[in-house]
C-alpha cells in the first residue's frame, strides 16, 4: 500500500473519532511537554552552574585563615587572620603555582560626588584578575609600584560603577573610600552572581598593601584573610594543595597532631561536584518525565485495541477485497504513529510555551535545546510504534471470515 493512501486512511480514521483521538493525543502531549520542560529546567540549571564555575576561576585553591583555639574556644575559620603576606610570597615560590593573590575584604562606604554606596572593598594583588579569570572592561590593573607604594588606586566592579557613576566612564576619576581619596584606574567586566547568589560585581579592588596600611587599620597588621592560589594546570591542583599545606604547616609551626590554623580548599573540585549533582538532577527529571510518555503510550495501545475490535468487520472486508495482512498491519501502525506524532507536536508547543512562561515568571533560565526536541520526537514516535504494534498485529492476524461475521 502506498504511503499517501496509508496517511489518507489514518487521517480519516482519526477524524471519525475526534474525541477519542484528542484524548489519546492528550496522553502523548502531556508526556512530551513534561519531557521538554524537564529537560529545559535541567539544561538551564546546568548552564547556570557552568557559568558560576567558570566565573570562579580555573584551577584554583583557596587558603583560608583557619580555626584557632583561643582560650579553649574554637573560633570559626577565617574570622581571625592567621595568614600573612609573607605566606603568600612563600607560596608564590612553590613549583606548579601560576599565580597567588592574597586578599582581605572589608565592608566600606564609597563616595563619588553626591552618590555613595556600601560595598565590599577587597585588598588584593594584580594576580587576582588572572585567578578569577576576570577581564577589565576599561583601564588597567595594579602596577608593581602601586603595590610597593601602597598607592590609593581602585578598580571598580560594574555594580559599584553603575551606582556611583551611572553609565559614565569612572576611569581617571577620584572616589572616596572611608573618607580617603582613591583614583579609579580600572573597571571590571560584568561577572554575575556567585554560588551563593551574591552579586560579584558589587566590589571595589584596591592593592592589599594599601588596604593593610591605610584602610583597615592596625588590628589587621600585615595579615590577610584569604590567599588564592592558581595551579599551572588541573593535574597540578592536588600536588600544589599538598605543597601549600606542608609549607604553611612548617611556617606556622604546627606540631604533628595539632589542628592547623589554616585551611586549603580546592574550589574546582567543589564546583565539579555541584555540576555533577545538577547533571544527575536533570537526568532524574528527564526519567520521571519519560514515565509519563510511557503512560501516554499505554493509552495509545488501549485505544488502538478498542479501535481494532470496533473495526473488526472493516478489517474483514478489507481482507476480502484483497488487503494482505501486511497492509492491515501498516494501516493500524500508521494510525498509532500519527496519533503519537501529532500529540508530540502539540506537546512540543505546550512544553516550549510553558518554559517561556516559567522563565518570565520566575526569572529562571530554562533552555529548550534542539537535542531535547529531537529526543522528544524520537521517543514519541518510538513509543507510538512500540505500543501500536501489538494492536496492529492483532488486526492483521484476524481471520477474514470470522472478522466479517463479527457483530
Amino acid at each position, binding site marked *: *500500500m502506498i504511503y499517501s493512501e496509508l496517511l489518507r486512511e489514518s487521517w480519516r480514521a482519526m477524524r*471519525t473519532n475526534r474525541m477519542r483521538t484528542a484524548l489519546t493525543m492528550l496522553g502523548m502531549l502531556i508526556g512530551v511537554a513534561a519531557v521538554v520542560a524537564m529537560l529545559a529546567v535541567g539544561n538551564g540549571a546546568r548552564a547556570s552552574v557552568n557559568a558560576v564555575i567558570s566565573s570562579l576561576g580555573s584551577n584554583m585553591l583557596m587558603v583560608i585563615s583557619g580555626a584557632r583555639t583561643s582560650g579553649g574556644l574554637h573560633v570559626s575559620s577565617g574570622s581571625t587572620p592567621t595568614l600573612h603576606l609573607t605566606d603568600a610570597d612563600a607560596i608564590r615560590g612553590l613549583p606548579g603555582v601560576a599565580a597567588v593573590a592574597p586578599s582581605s575584604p572589608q565592608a566600606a562606604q564609597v563616595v563619588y560626588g553626591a552618590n555613595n554606596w556600601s560595598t565590599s572593598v577587597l585588598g588584593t594583588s594584580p594576580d587576582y584578575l588572572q585567578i578569577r579569570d576576570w577581564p577589565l572592561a576599561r583601564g588597567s590593573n595594579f602596577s608593581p609600584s602601586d603595590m610597593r607604594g601602597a598607592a590609593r588606586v581602585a578598580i571598580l566592579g560594574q555594580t559599584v560603577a553603575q551606582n556611583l557613576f551611572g553609565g559614565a566612564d569612572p576611569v581617571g576619576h577620584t572616589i572616596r573610600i572611608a573618607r580617603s581619596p582613591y583614583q579609579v584606574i580600572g573597571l571590571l567586566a560584568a561577572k554575575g552572581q556567585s554560588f551563593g547568589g551574591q552579586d560579584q560585581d558589587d566590589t571595589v579592588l584596591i592593592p592589599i598593601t594599601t588596604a593593610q596600611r591605610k584602610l583597615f587599620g592596625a588590628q589587621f597588621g600585615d595579615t590577610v584573610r584569604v590567599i588564592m592560589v592558581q595551579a599551572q594546570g588541573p593535574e597540578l591542583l592536588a600536588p600544589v594543595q599538598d605543597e601549600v599545606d606542608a609549607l604553611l604547616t612548617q611556617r606556622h609551626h604546627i606540631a604533628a597532631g595539632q589542628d592547623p590554623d589554616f585551611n586549603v580548599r580546592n574550589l574546582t573540585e567543589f564546583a565539579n561536584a555541584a555540576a555533577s549533582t545538577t547533571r544527575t538532577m536533570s537526568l532524574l527529571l528527564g526519567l520521571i518525565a519519560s514515565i509519563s510518555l510511557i503512560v501516554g503510550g499505554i493509552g495509545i495501545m488501549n485505544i488502538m485495541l478498542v479501535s481494532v475490535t470496533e473495526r473488526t468487520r472493516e478489517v*474483514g*472486508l478489507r481482507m*476480502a*477485497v484483497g*488487503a*494482505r495482512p501486511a497492509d492491515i498491519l501498516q494501516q493500524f501502525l500508521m494510525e498509532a504513529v500519527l496519533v503519537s506524532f501529532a500529540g508530540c507536536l502539540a506537546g512540543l508547543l505546550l512544553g516550549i510555551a510553558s518554559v517561556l512562561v516559567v522563565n518570565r515568571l520566575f526569572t529562571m533560565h530554562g533552555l529548550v535545546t534542539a537535542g531535547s526536541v529531537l529526543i522528544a520526537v524520537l521517543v514519541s514516535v518510538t513509543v507510538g510504534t512500540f505500543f501500536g504494534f501489538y494492536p496492529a498485529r492483532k488486526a492483521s492476524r484476524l481471520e477474514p471470515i470470522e472478522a*466479517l461475521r463479527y457483530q
Partner: protein
Amino acid sequence: MSEPLIRTVHMGKRYALPAGDLQALADVSVAIGEAEFIAIMGPSGSGKSTFMNVLGCLDVPSEGEYFLRGQSVRSMDVDQRAHLRNTLIGFVFQSYNLLPRLSAVENIGLPLVYAGVGVRERDRRSRELLAQVGLDRYAGFLPPQLSGGQQQRVAIARSLVNDATLLLADEPTGNLDSHSSDEILAIFERLNRERRLTIVLVTHEPDVAAHARRLIRFHDGRIVSDTPVDRAATIQRTVVA
C-alpha cells in the same frame, strides 16, 4: 478440454471444535465454467457458506483440492490468496459491508487501493461502475444515506471494479424488499449475459434461485443435487407452495 474456471476434487473442510470435529464440507467435486450462473441452496448448516468461503479464497480446504484457473489454492500462502481475491473475485454480502465513513465512490474503489491504483484512476473507474448500476447521482453519498437496494448496488459495483471474473453473492437479496431484490437480480442477469461473469449465488428463496441457470443443493456438507434450472417448473412449484 480446457481447464474450467473452478474445479474441486473431493474437497472437504473440517473444523476442530472443542466439542469434536465438525465436517462442514465433505467430498465436494464440482466444476464451474466461465459465464455460468449458479444458485446454491440448502438448509442452514448444510455447508453452503463454507463452500462459498472456500471458493472465495477466504478459507482453505482441509481435504482434497481446489483449483482456481488451474492453480491449487490449497498450496498458496496468505498473500497469494489476497491477490486472487483482489484481482479475480468479487464479493456481495447479505449485509452489503460498505464502510460507513467512505462515500459510495470511495467504497467502490476500495479494492483498487490494494491493487496500487492511484486515486484519480480509482475515481474514474468507480464512477463508471456507479453509472452502470444506475447510481451516478449518488457518488458522494455515504452508505447510511442510501437505501438498502442502493447500498447493495454500490456493493456490486465494488465487486466488479477490478474486472473480477467470479462474483460470489451470499444471500444478496436477504435484506431487501421484493422490488429492490428484483432490481439486483436483473443486474446479476445482465452482468452474466453481457460481461460473461461467472456468478455463484447462495439463497434461501426458490424464486431468487430461479434466476440462475444451474442449481446445486447442499445437505450435511455434501452436494445432493446439481441440476439445470427449469424456470417454468421452479416458478410453478413456488406458486403451488
